């Protein structure tokens, strides 16, 4: 008897529609977020992550309406990210029915924001999204830095130090994305995952690069992830959530049936 490792389909949304880009370009449309969420919940997804990739202020209300609609029909945990910059943004998302919010750029601009958010709303609902890119040369010890703005903007901050600091400030979970792997379908950056997971006390969600079910299992077994996140392999029905769970169970990973 143990806590199950979680499988989390991720909905990248733009103006209320689910999209998933390959390396953030070449975006394809995979449907209505409420419909997609319900489908995943019925199929046994353990959580849903909703990332608002536009996150511009004029579309804020669309996002809140979508979150409210999902939360009214889907009774599994829901994390919302994208454009979370102020305590009021967090309150609005939680009031709309989100269970957790994911903070990315705003944490880099003002790390104290994470502390204030965790103090106000509790660590359990504060996820810090860490977008990391390998910056070491092939013959060096591996080193990763965090990037913002969808992986375009370097910060010079070491990813492992940053994850530790965010946990000290009250992050209850880390959503770790390898920017090198995102959209490539060649698997997680397992070294990165393991390094961050072993460095912090809170759960890690591995993200970026899933192309098949073995990648999901590797994320847990070799990457020491507590949860695995994927988008395109589920959106385009290459694999179902149930197939993913059955495969992980066959590799000895505890999952929710």
């Amino acid at each position, binding site marked *: *008897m143990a806590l199950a490792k979680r499988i989390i389909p991720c909905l990248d949304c733009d103006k209320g529609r689910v999209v998933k880009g390959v390396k953030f370009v070449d975006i394809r449309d995979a449907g209505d977020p409420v419909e997609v969420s319900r489908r995943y919940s019925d199929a046994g997804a353990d959580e849903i992550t909703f990332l608002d990739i536009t996150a511009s202020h004029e579309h804020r209300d669309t996002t809140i309406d979508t979150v409210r609609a999902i939360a009214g029909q889907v009774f599994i*945990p829901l994390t919302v990210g994208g454009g979370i910059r102020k305590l009021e943004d967090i309150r609005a998302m939680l009031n709309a029915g989100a269970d957790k919010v994911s903070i990315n750029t705003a944490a880099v601009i003002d790390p104290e924001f994470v502390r204030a958010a965790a103090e106000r709303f509790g660590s*359990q609902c504060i996820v810090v999204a860490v977008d990391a890119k390998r910056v070491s040369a092939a013959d060096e010890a591996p080193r990763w830095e965090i990037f913002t703005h969808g992986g375009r903007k370097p910060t010079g901050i070491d990813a492992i130090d940053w994850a530790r600091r965010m946990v000290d400030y009250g992050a209850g979970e880390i959503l770790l994305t390898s920017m090198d792997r995102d959209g490539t379908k060649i698997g997680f950056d397992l070294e990165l995952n393991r390094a961050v997971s072993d460095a912090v006390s809170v759960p890690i969600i591995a993200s970026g690069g899933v192309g098949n079910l073995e990648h999901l299992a590797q994320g847990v077994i070799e990457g020491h992830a507590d949860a695995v996140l994927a988008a395109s392999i589920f959106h385009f029905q290459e694999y179902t959530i149930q197939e993913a769970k059955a495969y992980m169970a066959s590799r000895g990973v505890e999952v929710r*049936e």
Partner: protein
Amino acid sequence: MNKIAVIDYGMGNLHSVAKALEHVGRQADQAVEVVVTPDPGEIAVADRVVFPGVGAIRDCMAEIRRLDVGSMVEQAMQEKPVLAICVGMQALMRHSEENGGVDCLGFMDGEVRFFGSDLRDEDGRRLKVPHMGWNEVIQTTDHPLWQGVADRSRFYFVHSYYVHMHRAELIAGSSHYGAQLVAAVADKNIFATQFHPEKSQTAGLTLLRNFLSWDGQG
């Protein structure tokens, strides 16, 4: 009309629990009215009361005291079915170790303890805190709220502090994460869960549906 009052003291995701109750009411073809309210009058006339809670205990207790939620809960506990969820359950206990130690309502004889920063499983592997995700719940008593829920069903948990009850006979469900933890408590007309039934899909919705028709008898 079955009227359910969800006590709103500004802490946490009340939308979800209200929506889940409405959803199971529809499924059961029951006329259910769910109100999310801090108003003692509304709570007094409800048929059933939900005492939720999310976040840090110090802030929760501060709001509970400021709005006198304690007397609303105490009143409800004397006369109708009450469901306490997560920090709502913890707030019923005597004391919590969170935030350097906080006195809680003391309606139940239990303590809220920290999992610790070096939590390990039986094989010595480190366990992450918060305890976040789906864990099995062993039903330690027969209870109307467990009806139709398979023993050892998984429910969704998210917490860093857990309840220890001094009277084991009040424990209705237990779970394990480095330590034995109280997953559910049943005492007369009150049922309390550490997990979130409103986020626990089929198992959780079944429990909520049972709550809608529960008469408050063990």
